[in-house]
């Protein structure tokens, strides 16, 4: 039980630190771009949020589209402090969640020895959770068209899982079969293809989207490197002793 407690403790510390770091990076880079995109979203109105389903479109808008939007939307944090506070909370909580996944995976293979090895585990997390799913489903801004949510989430999770297994095979198995299986696991999700919207028409300027993709990739890279490094650093202090 001590072992479980120590994993959670290390995840909580590493996740909180990486989550806070991520919040700062997001407030400086991605969030201003999201706010800019929401101006275009307001200008475009409901059709910009069409997911190929007119009925769902209005319910999916961000509350700016038409009258009565508040009832359709449900509760949302007020812009400014409240919105930022919820982003901080989301970053820290999911930071701890990702830390639990990272530490659990690494413990199966002997645990992260030090912060340097943690950086490489973090890079693996970046490849699994950002690069692999992001190839098929690039970061998107509000008011950008997308396919139905549930199939995209399923594809995202399946692609991340395939990438995680593939990396495990590549690093910890030595046979040619394992390498071929790993490559197949990396390629197949993209042969199947991520769910795409019927039309890519959007009021968002391409330059804005490009800046956003770069900002997301760089901030998540920092997040994962920090998370892995911190997990390695604190694992040595807590898990080793148990």
């Amino acid at each position, binding site marked *: 039980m001590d072992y*479980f407690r120590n994993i959670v403790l290390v995840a909580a510390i590493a996740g909180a630190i990486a989550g806070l770091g991520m919040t700062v990076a997001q407030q400086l880079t*991605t969030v201003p771009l*999201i706010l800019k995109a929401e101006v275009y979203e307001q200008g475009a109105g409901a059709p910009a949020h069409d997911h190929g389903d007119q009925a769902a479109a209005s319910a999916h808008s961000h509350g700016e589209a038409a009258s009565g939007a508040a009832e359709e939307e449900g509760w949302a*944090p007020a812009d400014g402090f409240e919105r930022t506070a919820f982003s901080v909370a989301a970053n820290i909580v*999911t930071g701890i*969640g990702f830390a*639990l996944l990272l530490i659990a995976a690494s413990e199966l293979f002997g645990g992260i020895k030090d912060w340097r090895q943690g950086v490489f585990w973090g890079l693996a997390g970046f490849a699994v959770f950002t690069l692999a799913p992001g190839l098929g489903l690039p970061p998107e801004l509000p008011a950008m068209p997308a396919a139905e949510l549930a199939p995209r989430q399923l594809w995202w999770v399946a692609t991340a899982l395939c990438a995680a297994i593939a990396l495990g095979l590549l690093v*910890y198995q030595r046979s040619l079969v394992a390498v071929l299986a790993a490559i197949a696991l990396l390629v197949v999700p993209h042969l199947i293809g991520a769910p795409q919207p019927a039309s890519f028409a959007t009021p968002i300027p391409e330059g804005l989207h490009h800046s956003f993709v770069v900002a997301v990739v760089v901030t998540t890279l920092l997040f994962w490197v920090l998370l892995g490094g911190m997990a390695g650093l604190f694992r040595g202090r807590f898990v080793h002793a148990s």
Partner: protein
Amino acid sequence: MSMLPTKFAGGANDAAIALTTARVISIFAAALLGIFIVGGVGFSHIEAVHNAAHDYRHSMSFPCH
């Protein structure tokens, strides 16, 4: 309970910490907790949860809306 492989794959200078069944159960419990947390914040279809973590979801490039 039975023992799983008793050496970690990369454990050169961290030799022979047993990956016992109890440890494996702890590891999977931790992973499940992680999946539950990330799934709840990043993938929930509940509108209020989506709105609260909206900027986070976009910034992490989770499927959104």
